[in-house]
């Protein structure tokens, strides 16, 4: 499954929701913009307002100067009005005036009598000196109204005929001096009135009285030295200071006086405006502007945040839809929209989606190609591996393609087939017409499919071999042409099979044993000819019902579905009848078998069976001994080997202790194994319960003789029997005594192996020993037994034979002793040996069987 890469989600920025980022970014940008713009804008604004203020100040300064000049004009006018004062006119027209023509009167601190009412001017200022001059300008009366020293002469020098007022500085004090002619009406003028007004604080204030100064300081300064002469606020701006001294605290505007300026005088008008006030004003403006700007910024941030918030909520919605789409359409695991930056999430999600889409696309493409290829491969495999030859031909019957089976079964290479007409190559000449017609029929449109199907023909292969085939044609309409797929199914096997089935059908009827079929109602459906004796026995025929007894047996068999076997004893024949129910078809098959001969043979063999049992038992004894010997030899050999190995290792000092212990344990195991074998042997001999029966000993000897007949003949031993006349009844275990005798006989035969052929004689003798004993003698003409061996003969494991185990005689003795008899041996070296078995007998015993 496709797994999207989620590593990008780890970045912290991806975990912060978009609205928070927008708030943060908005605030941050606002802050930065503020930091950058504020000083710049404040300065701009400051400069702007400063320039504005300055220009306004200049206007104001001009206003103050103009007002000052108007004030001077008013004063000049007032002087002229004063000169018309009737008292003054009368005074100068008085005779005294003429009388004292040569005299000058000086009055101190005495106001002039015609000036009681002051100057005819609102807010007028008090002149410091009032003078009356004659027409030549000589002073006649001088009134010092104030104690101020004043250079009268200098003032008089300024007298001009034009009688126009002037401003001038005398002794560093500025004055405004006005003149006016005194005349009575149209009469000749008599004198000139001269007023001297110091331009002081009061003067200046008065000059501006209508407008008010409002923190502005005005005054006059000496133009050449730039020295202040007077100001409207002496307490703040004292005279006798330089103009430049104030440049720091005030904004200074200087203007030349346009009117009333005395010649050779360079008095100039100044206007001081306090800088601190200006700055305060400016700051006030800037603060208000800044406040305004701050609110604007807040509004912007809010708007920005809200917009982004709205966008992010839309993004969340889109994310959800993409997730749902991915889940429904592409099977991506549905993801929760997630918390964090929706934009990054969206990008991630889209990337995943695109990857997934292209992955799915690729996969689909691959799967589709794979499917196509697979289906092609399947089809071609089907074609190739079809067991039927398949040949594709074009309209003209020329071969276009042929599968491997076709190549193989017709014995052509593909190249030999392609391009050649099919009829000539693989169809027998007699069927050429048929296939051509078939193709022609199939070529016509709308032909019924079955016309193209399955017609029998004879095919012919490259080597001339003919085969019956079933030919079907399948027209295939390709894009541009039509081809025909021809299936040539080899039906030779089918025909063969049909024949076989037909012959198989005869199988049962040809069966020499009875075969019958009986349905679930007990009716004989089928019976072959061999069943006649059985039908005769039952007294019914084919199509008739079985006798009740057999019908019931059939019902039972059909009930439980098990096979049953019965024997039917006819007069001359015995049949075995196997009843096989076929449940699914509701009938039973009966298979009879003539077992007459088998039964006869069985009876015969049963007669031999008891003999066979004896033979088997007896013959095993010797073999058993050899087998046991071999078996016993194995553990003993192993013991010897282990022990020798141990000794050698101990001698040479090789081999570890554990190893040696292991080997010795092996020795124990093997010794135990040997013990087991011995135990088994003992069990074999001793444990069998004796089965006593009364036997005629003569019969028994006869039987033993017949057993060994073959062996005796083989070894060219002449066997002689000398049996007692009458029966020798004895109660004994037939098998055991047989074993004993057989053993003795075999020993005797073995003993004579190395004796000349014509001297090999075995004699078996039986006779009565008194009333209650019988005797059996086994005599041979072998080399005899040395006397020193005679006494050991019946010891266990004593043997003189190559392959003897030394068990035969000891066992024999044990058996005889268990019958309360005796066994003994006598021998003459070179002549032979004689074994004698004596058994108890009782003439009253009744012989049974034998």
């Amino acid at each position, binding site marked *: 499954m496709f797994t999207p890469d989620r590593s990008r989600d780890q970045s912290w920025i991806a975990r912060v929701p978009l609205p928070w980022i927008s708030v943060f970014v908005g605030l941050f940008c606002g802050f930065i913009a503020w930091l950058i713009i504020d000083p710049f804008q404040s300065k701009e604004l400051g400069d702007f307002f400063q320039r504005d203020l300055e220009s306004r100040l200049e206007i104001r300064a001009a206003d103050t100067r103009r007002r000052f000049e108007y004030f001077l004009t008013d004063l000049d006018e007032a002087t002229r009005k004063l000169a018309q004062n009737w008292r003054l006119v009368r005074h100068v027209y008085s005779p005294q005036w003429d009388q004292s023509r040569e005299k000058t009167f000086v009055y101190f601190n005495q106001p002039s009598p015609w000036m009681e009412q002051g100057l005819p001017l609102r807010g007028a200022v008090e002149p410091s000196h009032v003078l009356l001059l004659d027409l030549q300008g000589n002073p006649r009366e001088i009134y010092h109204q104030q104690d101020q020293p004043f250079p009268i002469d200098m003032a008089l020098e300024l007298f001009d005929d034009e009688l126009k007022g002037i401003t001038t500085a005398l002794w560093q004090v500025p004055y405004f001096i006005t003149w006016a002619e005194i005349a009575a009406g149209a009469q000749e003028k008599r004198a000139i009135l001269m007023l001297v007004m110091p331009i002081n604080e009061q003067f200046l204030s008065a000059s501006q009285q209508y407008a008010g100064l409002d923190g502005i300081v005005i005054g006059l300064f000496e133009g050449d030295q730039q020295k202040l002469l007077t100001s409207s606020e002496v307490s703040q701006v004292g005279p006798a200071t330089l103009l430049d001294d104030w440049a720091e605290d005030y904004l200074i505007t200087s203007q030349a006086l346009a009117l009333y300026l005395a010649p050779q005088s360079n008095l100039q008008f100044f206007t001081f405006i306090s800088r601190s006030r200006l700055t305060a004003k400016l700051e006030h403006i800037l603060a208000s502007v800044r406040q305004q700007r701050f609110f604007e910024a807040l509004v912007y941030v809010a708007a920005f945040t809200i917009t982004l918030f709205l966008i992010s909520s839309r993004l969340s919605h889109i994310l959800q839809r993409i997730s749902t789409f991915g889940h429904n359409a592409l099977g991506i695991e549905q993801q929760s929209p997630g918390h964090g930056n929706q934009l990054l999430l969206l990008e991630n999600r889209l990337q995943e989606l695109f990857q997934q889409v292209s992955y799915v696309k690729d996969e689909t493409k691959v799967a589709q190609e794979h499917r196509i290829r697979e289906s092609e491969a399947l089809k071609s495999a089907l074609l190739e591996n079809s067991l039927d030859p398949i040949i594709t031909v074009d309209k003209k019957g020329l071969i276009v393609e042929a599968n491997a089976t076709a190549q193989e079964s017709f014995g052509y290479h593909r190249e030999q087939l392609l391009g050649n007409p099919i009829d000539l190559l693989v169809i027998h000449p007699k069927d050429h017409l048929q296939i051509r017609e078939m193709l022609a029929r199939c070529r016509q449109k709308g032909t019924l499919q079955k016309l193209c199907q399955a017609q029998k023909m004879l095919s012919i292969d490259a080597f001339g071999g003919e085969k019956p085939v079933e030919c079907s044609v399948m027209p295939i309409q390709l894009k541009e042409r039509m081809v025909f797929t021809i299936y040539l199914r080899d039906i030779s096997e089918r025909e063969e099979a049909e024949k076989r089935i037909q012959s198989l059908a005869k199988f049962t009827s040809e069966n020499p044993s009875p075969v019958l079929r009986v349905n679930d109602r007990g009716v004989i459906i089928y019976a072959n000819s061999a069943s006649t004796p059985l039908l005769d026995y039952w007294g019914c025929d084919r199509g008739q019902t079985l006798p009740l007894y057999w019908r019931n047996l059939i019902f039972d068999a059909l009930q439980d579905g098990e096979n049953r076997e019965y024997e039917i004893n006819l007069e001359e024949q015995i049949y075995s009848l196997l009843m096989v129910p076929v449940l699914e078809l509701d009938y039973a098959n009966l298979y009879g078998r003539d077992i007459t001969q088998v039964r006869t043979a069985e009876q015969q063999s049963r007669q031999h069976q008891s003999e066979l049992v004896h033979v088997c038992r007896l013959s095993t004894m010797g073999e058993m001994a050899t087998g046991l010997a071999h078996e016993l030899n194995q553990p003993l050999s*192993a013991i010897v080997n282990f022990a020798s190995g141990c000794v050698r290792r101990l001698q040479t000092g090789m081999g570890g202790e554990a190893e040696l212990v292991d080997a010795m344990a092996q020795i124990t195991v093997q010794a135990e194994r040997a013990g087991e074998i011995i135990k088994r042997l003992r069990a074999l001999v001793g444990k069998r319960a004796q089965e006593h029966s009364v036997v005629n000993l003569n019969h028994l000897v006869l039987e033993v003789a017949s057993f060994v007949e073959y062996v005796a003949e083989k070894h060219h031993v002449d066997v002689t029997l000398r049996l007692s006349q009458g029966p020798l009844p004895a109660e004994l275990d037939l098998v055991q005594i047989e074993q004993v005798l057989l053993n003795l006989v075999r020993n005797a035969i073995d003993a004579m192996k190395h004796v000349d052929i014509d001297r090999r004689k075995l004699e078996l003798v039986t006779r009565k020993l008194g009333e209650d004993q019988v005797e059996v003698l086994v005599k041979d003409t072998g080399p005899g037994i040395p006397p020193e061996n005679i006494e050991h003969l019946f010891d266990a494991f004593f043997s003189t034979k190559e392959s003897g185990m030394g068990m035969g005689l000891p066992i024999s003795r044990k058996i005889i002793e268990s019958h309360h008899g005796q066994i003994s041996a006598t021998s003459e070296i070179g002549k032979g040996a004689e074994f004698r078995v004596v058994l108890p007998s009782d003439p009253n015993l009744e012989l049974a069987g034998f």
Partner: protein
Amino acid sequence: MNHKPTVFVVDDDQAIRSSLKWLIESVAMQVKTFESADAFIENYYPGRSGCLLLDVRMPGMSGLELQEYLAEQRISIPVIIITGHGDVPMAIRAMKAGAVDFIEKPFNDELLLESIRHALMLDEQQRDKQSQKAEIATRLARLTPREHEVMAMVTEGKANKEIASALGVSAKTVEAHRARVMEKMQAGSLADLVRMAMLANIGMDAGI
């Protein structure tokens, strides 16, 4: 490959196998045991040196049958037959079939080990001979057909002149052939050459 000779033991009785292994290993020989003739055949590489201790009586392929099989396959490993009590006729058959020795169970360790040593010695000798034969065969293979003929005649004791007339060439040519034969066969003397020819008599017969 391990060049130490191995004593292969084939016996159906596990106790006999392990006890034989124990005994033979006590004289520092390498032992490999198999429970049946088939197992031996399946695991035996003809190249291995060693000898085979073979029980006559086994279920499946008997010892004698294995011997026959080995003879058929031209595997010339020396075989010592081990036999149980009463298998003497069989042992004799085995001896006739080329067994080196036969030993009756239970074994006398001295006899057994002596027999094994003897068998291993035989094996070694056989191997030596085999490798000599192989060496001679490769040398023979280098001879041209004409040189083969000359060599055959020389080792039969014919004189150069006789050979020359038999082959219809000059005596000098025969001389040259003979020299080349001696050189190619790396024979120091005529006697050497004759010895080689005897060892590889099969090759000589085939060559003419």
